[in-house]
């Protein structure tokens, strides 16, 4: 049966996504912190306890 997709295209798409993720990671505070640079705030250190929703939105009662 003829395949409904091209393997090369799939691998290319996965490769592009991997490159984007790696560029994002290599430029991130977490990578800097793990490489020995102090004094940077990373996502792993912080969770906003005052937030009202998973996206970090504040509670209506705290808004001006």
């Amino acid at each position, binding site marked *: 049966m003829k*395949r*409904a*997709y091209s393997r090369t295209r*799939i691998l290319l798409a996965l490769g592009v996504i991997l490159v984007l*993720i790696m560029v*994002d*990671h290599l430029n*991130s*505070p*977490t*990578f800097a912190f793990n490489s020995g640079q102090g004094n940077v*705030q*990373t*996502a*792993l250190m*912080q*969770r*906003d306890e*005052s*937030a*009202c*929703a*998973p*996206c*970090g*939105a*504040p*509670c*209506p*009662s705290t*808004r001006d």
Partner: protein
Amino acid sequence: MGTSLVVGSFLFGMGMQLGGGCGSGTLFTVGAGNIRMVVTLVFFIVGTVIGSMHLPWWLDQPGFDPVPLVNTLGLSGAIIAQLVGLGLVAWWVNRIERKAHGSIERNELLWKSQGHGVLRTLVSGRWPFTWAILILAAGNALTLAVSGAPWSITFAFNVWGAKALEAVGVNMAQFEFWTWDYPAIALKDSVLTHIPSVMNFGLLLGAMLAAGLANKFNEASRNRPEGRQFMAAVVGGLMLGYGARLGFGCNIGALFSGIASASLHAWIWFACAFAGSLIGIRLRPFFRLPN
């Protein structure tokens, strides 16, 4: 809970019917190689970013703070209230199914697939619903234990879209949403430190693997989406994204995880998304989508 939740979940319900899936549904169909759903996902991401720009305005409309049922009814009361609610939903949909088809399809609730042995079903599907139900429940409990928050999907779309805009020179800090602590740090840091993003990558790869093992990868994409069907993916994706941001999540983050954490907002989300979905069904024929 308030205007943004009602409007957002209603839009999300309509978007599900036009876009062809929900938050998790869009991801797993994209993972399985469905080209139409790639269009939906792209506009889903666009919608979440637009929603994040508008969310502060929506939050200033009438609303009140979340109501955790555990605080108002106690632990046992919250569990009982939720079980009664879920029981009523089950009774209602059973009644509708019996009315429409004369009987209720019970094969889905069997432990074993009728066609194949357990091993073959495990590898190449299709899994009985009972397996999926248990894995979803155990998986969400594990997610909560490991990450400190239940499973969510769409905030990751927000982060991906905002990162893309920043990459082309847009300063996202000009929008209030991206100045709030959690979104700001999620935007600044690696997607590999962002749990919903990493779980979404896993979902995509898992769906790809499952579709491949079942020899169904890209099976749904032999006909490319064109014309009104393409438009439905665009409009549906935008509604899904905008609705998810205003409604504080999708069927996973707001509904599934919301009910699992006994939050009243999840039930409001369910009612409004259901109403939106009913209207979305009526709109499907206009976009040449089968009902």
